[in-house]
């Protein structure tokens, strides 16, 4: 995009009415010494320039002086050099551009990356070639190319969610990590905020929870094959990004391509076919398409459990007003079938599926107001139909059910077993509007790249909701039950935000770049500018200093915020069904129903504070980057906060022999609160080399160390009800929670051999788990903080009361093994990937993961029995073939 903009700059050459001008002219040629028309020639000091004509010729007049000239053409290696233009003289130079990439039958092999990061924000950029070389089937497979992710075999058997710079900490901490990682496709943030597929899990134990509410999007729905590039922003993101905590995954899909390709991937558990290409419809319109079908199975012996996906995409690119206005209209469709059909031996007759489809329209407009001003508009409408189904034979303890939908008392019926069918039908709508204005200008001898914008996102769910026969509920154990619930009266979520950013480049003693930005985000119900869930001011700052030509220092600070999901804001209520009269002999049960809302009116968005410092150093042909960071999520979402329920039974007479308060129901339920704090700190080291002759080998080493610690306020370690003889009451003592500190250090070694002449690309990737350790914190805190009384209310001890605790029930001790540290050390895995061209238009790729079949056993420490886990993914391999099929289309076209 930038390049096109610059070419426009070239077209509208601004000639300086200079007094003492010099002339700069010459030709730009490609590798075959053919003229390269449209090459941009920019003087960096003045930001002026031009483009070569169809003969590759350029000619321009400039004021005399010393300039840094930048010669660039998409796909070719940029040339940058210093020239001196003398007064009234003509400088004539010819440039030979060298291709930056080559193709292996359609796989684009990029040449050298820059040895040092070129941008202020820490990010990993992954090109389409790397994705194809990896044989990724979906976005999650791509994520293992980022430092700190453990190697896995490809597959789509389970849901896949993104974590950026975090060690898995389990439970709510992970959900917050996943939920706070924003996935953007073609500049449109995808959202899981309106996902209301709650309580789809029933206590059957067969298969995992398939849905992703209150957590990150399932990346399986994003096919890898249509991706042009993925950018994973791990550092401080630009202020144009909002509603996130941990980071951003920016996916750009292919557009404006001219060839057609078909590809087939096969490995033991996954098969995939993809076809994509583009047509030039007219001078102004270009149409691209992509079709993908994938099938995955977790275990060949269980064909009933499988996942299949159909994905399609259409992109219409229109260039209007002499290329000043570019419009892209995109249509995406994904249909996923996550199936758990009936297994022959399943006595519970369980059938489950999750069949979602997403239809998204995205409009993108870019208008160049002038050579320095740009206006962008993104509008997207996303419709996701979620359809989760569970059918099973419920066999429970003999109990009762009622179909009361309101509070009150009525006769119920006794049940023991029945076939329950639960449908959870969500229809999530997400509308996204973003207007962005960008301008470049010079002020006080510094280049300013200014942008400002406003975003509004409106999300709601109009699904039919949870649908089931209340007399055949999905679960019927205990007396806290659920009922059918439509979603269309649940308030929507509105996110309104404005942002500004200025990227300043200049020199103060030494050159520097400063990105200063701020974003104000308001989260609320339904309406524009609604503020029910908080207003956040999020400053972002990135500073790059260049003390020497081979050294750069990057510093960053930023704050981000993330809205709570609609499922956290509006969970399903609890229906407490109390048996006032219970007489199974005469089949008479009279039930009082009490309804408790689980909504927390005080729930607000969560936020993260990020710090980062990096030093990048080039030593000859080696580039080294060291980054230290700290991310702290505050007010993260967790289901904590015990809320008491206390109800007397209607007719139960208190008899002398009964213990006290036997005629009552006392229980608690928890609600979502901003109670989670999650700390992640780490160091990332990256070492890259230029090609090492004569074999043209490139080595890249990425080391990532991270430390993760999280805790929840208002979350305690409950030990269950016991009788306190002094109080004469049942109490549930609670202690401070036991938390866990985790540290991990992985080193990835990547050795690339790219041989253009052979059309071959081979990669050996090795991962070393240097250590991966965790241990408990808080085991020594042996005294209870308080207790829940019989009414379910929290009673806290004072410090002096705590000091005098003698009752054993208010004390806890842990055996010695609890104090042990788990540490997986020095585990290696080696993967091999080879891509080779077959003729001009086809290619064959092959991968072997864990080709040394190293699967060490790790003996777990924190256990009283001998227990082992097998490390590393299993030895696994797969192939891919692809071919260009342009001829098929050419016949028609010509």
């Amino acid at each position: 995009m930038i390049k096109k903009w610059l070419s426009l700059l070239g077209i509208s050459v601004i000639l300086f009415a200079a007094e003492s001008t010099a002339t700069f002219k010459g030709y730009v040629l490609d590798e075959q010494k053919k003229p390269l028309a449209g090459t941009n020639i920019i003087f960096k000091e003045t930001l002026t320039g031009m483009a070569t004509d169809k003969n590759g010729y350029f000619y321009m007049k400039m004021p005399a002086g010393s300039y840094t000239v930048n010669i660039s053409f998409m796909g070719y290696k940029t040339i940058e050099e210093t020239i001196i233009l003398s007064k009234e003289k003509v400088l004539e130079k010819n440039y030979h551009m060298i291709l930056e990439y080559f193709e292996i039958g359609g796989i684009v092999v990029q040449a050298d990356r820059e040895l040092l990061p070129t941008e202020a924000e820490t990010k990993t950029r992954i090109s389409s070639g790397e994705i194809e070389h990896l044989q990724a089937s979906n976005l999650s497979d791509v994520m293992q190319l980022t430092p700190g992710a453990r190697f896995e075999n490809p597959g789509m058997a389970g849901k896949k969610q993104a974590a950026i710079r975090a060690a898995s900490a389990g439970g709510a901490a992970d959900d917050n990590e996943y939920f706070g990682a924003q996935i953007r496709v073609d500049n449109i943030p995808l959202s899981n905020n309106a996902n209301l597929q709650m309580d789809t899990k029933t206590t059957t134990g067969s298969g995992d929870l398939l849905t992703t509410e209150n957590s990150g999007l399932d990346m399986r729905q994003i096919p890898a094959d249509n991706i042009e590039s993925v950018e994973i922003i791990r550092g401080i993101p630009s202020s144009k990004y909002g509603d996130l905590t941990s980071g951003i995954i920016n996916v750009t899909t292919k557009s404006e391509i001219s060839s057609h390709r078909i590809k087939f991937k096969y490995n033991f558990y996954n098969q995939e076919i993809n076809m994509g290409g583009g047509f030039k419809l007219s001078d102004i319109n270009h149409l691209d398409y992509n079709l993908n079908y994938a099938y995955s199975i977790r275990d060949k012996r269980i064909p009933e459990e499988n996942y299949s996906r159909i994905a399609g995409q259409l992109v219409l690119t229109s260039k209007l007003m002499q290329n000043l206005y570019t419009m892209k209209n995109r249509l995406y469709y994904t249909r996923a079938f996550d199936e758990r059909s009936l297994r022959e031996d399943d006595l519970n007759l369980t059938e489950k599926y999750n069949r979602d489809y997403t239809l998204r329209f995205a409009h993108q407009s870019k208008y160049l107001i002038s050579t320095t001003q740009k206006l962008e508009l993104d509008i997207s409408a996303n419709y996701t139909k979620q359809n989760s189904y569970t059918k099973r034979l419920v066999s429970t303890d003999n109990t009762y059910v009622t179909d009361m939908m309101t509070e009150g008392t009525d006769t119920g019926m006794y049940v023991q077993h029945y076939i329950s069918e639960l449908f959870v039908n969500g229809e999530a709508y997400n509308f996204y509007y973003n207007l962005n204005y960008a301008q470049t200008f010079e002020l006080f001898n510094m280049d300013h790249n200014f942008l400002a914008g406003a975003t509004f996102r409106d999300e709601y769910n109009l699904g039919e909701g949870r649908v089931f026969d209340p007399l055949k509920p999905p679960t019927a154990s205990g007396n806290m039950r659920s009922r059918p619930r439509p979603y269309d009266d649940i308030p929507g979520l509105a996110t309104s935000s404005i942002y500004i950013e200025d990227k300043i480049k200049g020199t103060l003693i030494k050159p520097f770049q400063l990105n200063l930005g701020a974003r104000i985000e308001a989260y609320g119900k339904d309406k524009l500018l609604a503020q029910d869930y908080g207003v956040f001011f999020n400053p972002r700052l990135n500073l790059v200093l260049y003390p020497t030509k081979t050294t750069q220092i990057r510093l960053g600070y930023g704050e981000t915020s993330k809205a709570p999901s609609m499922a956290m804001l509006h969970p399903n209520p609890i229906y407490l069904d109390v048996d006032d009269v219970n007489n199974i002999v005469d089949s008479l049960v009279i039930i009082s129903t009490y309804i408790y809302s689980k909504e927390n009116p005080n729930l607000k968005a969560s936020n993260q504070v990020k710090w980062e410092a990096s030093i990048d150093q080039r030593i000859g042909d080696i580039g080294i980057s060291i980054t230290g960071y700290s991310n702290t999520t505050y007010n993260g979402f967790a289901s904590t906060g015990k809320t008491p329920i206390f109800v007397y039974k209607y007719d139960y007479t208190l008899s002398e022999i009964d213990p006290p308060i036997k005629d009552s129901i006392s229980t608690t339920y928890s609600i979502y609160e901003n109670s989670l704090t999650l700390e992640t700190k780490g160091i990332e080291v990256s070492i890259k080399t230029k090609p090492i002759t004569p074999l043209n080998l490139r080595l890249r080493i990425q080391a990532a160390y991270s430390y993760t610690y999280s805790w929840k306020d208002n979350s305690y370690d409950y030990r269950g009800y016991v009788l306190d003889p002094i109080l004469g009451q049942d109490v549930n003592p609670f202690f401070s929670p036991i938390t866990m500190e985790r540290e991990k250090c992985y080193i990835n070694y990547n050795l690339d051999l790219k041989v253009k002449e052979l059309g071959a690309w081979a990669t050996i990737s090795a991962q070393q788990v240097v250590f991966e350790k965790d241990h408990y914190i808080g085991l020594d805190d042996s005294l209870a903080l308080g207790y829940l009384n019989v009414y379910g209310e929290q009673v806290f001890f004072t410090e002096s009361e705590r000091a005098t605790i003698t009752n054993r029930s208010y004390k806890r001790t842990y055996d010695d093994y609890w104090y042990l540290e788990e540490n997986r050390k020095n585990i290696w895995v080696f993967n091999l990937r080879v891509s080779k061209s077959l003729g001009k238009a086809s290619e064959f790729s092959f991968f072997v993961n864990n080709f040394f079949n190293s699967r060490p056993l790790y003996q777990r420490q924190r256990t009283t029995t001998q227990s082992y886990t097998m490390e590393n993914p299993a030895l696994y391999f797969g192939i891919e073939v692809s071919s260009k099929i342009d001829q098929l289309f050419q016949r028609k076209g010509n």
Partner: protein
Amino acid sequence: MRTHKNMKKIIKHHLAPLCFLILFIILSCTQNITPPASMRFSVEITVLDTSASDSDSLVSAALVVMQSISYGEIHEALTNSQGIASFTNLIPDRYNILASGERVSLSEIIIINGQLQDTSLYIEENDTLDLRIITQTSRSSALVISEIYYSGAPPNPVPQYFHDQFLEIYNNSSATLYLDSLIIADVDYGHYEDSVIYAIHAYMFPGDGDDYPINPGELIVIAQDAIDHSPAPIHSINLLDADFEYYLSDKGDVDNVNVTNMLQIHHKYGIDFLYSVFKDALVLMHVKDPYKLGYGEFNELLLPKSAVIDGIDYSDNLAEIDHKRLSPDIDGGLTGGIPSYSNKSLERYIDRIEDGRIILMDNNNSSLDFHVLHPPTPGYIEMEAEE
């Protein structure tokens, strides 16, 4: 307490012929010779239990049997409160003398056995002889777990149905006992050596001390739910006639109003006091104050091991004898070995029958004392299974 029709039937059908057989054997061995009455004399036999504490050393109500070896004459007498059994009209001969008695408390039966083999008794007419029999004792529970059905019903058509579980308690003694305030508890794994029981659940019989008597030879059934379970899983059982049931008033349980509810003492988890279908240990205890010892680390109620009356340790895998929950003083073995949902129960063997009263085997070793029964027999003791 109800009497059980089934049991009566069994006694009628099986016990009566057995008694006739015994009588026949005894009669056929008796020689019909009558020595002169002038030779006859009297004997007083004192039965002493050296294992008992001082006050109990004289064994009362013990049956002393004297059998003349030459003539086969049998004389029987019971000891009085002084531990003395008086015999008159004895013929001088060599005698085998057997003494057997028992001392019954709530928690145990002490079986007392003593004998004097081939003892010559020749004395003057109408003289009186003092003999002492030093006895040996063996202990067994007065109340025993006679049957436990934990495996659940076969999955036809309803899977995972184990809500028809029951526990049967039998009075193995000759005295009427009371269930009032006795506790049934299940035992957490991992405290084999401790002097306390770590109870996950504990339920108590109601009553003030004399409300729920259990007569000698009588048994009671404690059901999870006292309902007819049979229609749903077709091989399940009818527990409508159970004597007690667990009713969890705050967990959505069902209540048979005609059956006495057990009182909840401690309930760590679950929607009923469900016994594991795989492995568990259950104990019957008599504890004065169940809350006296407090609680364990993970919400188990601590109960004194010395208060255990009877216990059973079971597992689906009998090889796991080193993973026992009960120490040998309660249960020296491990029983079970039956698959889950097999509709099989574990029943105690019949040791012997005394006066028409079944005495169940109680070696405090479930490996020896229990056998697998199919189908379960709530409320009666299966006689054929003895073979």
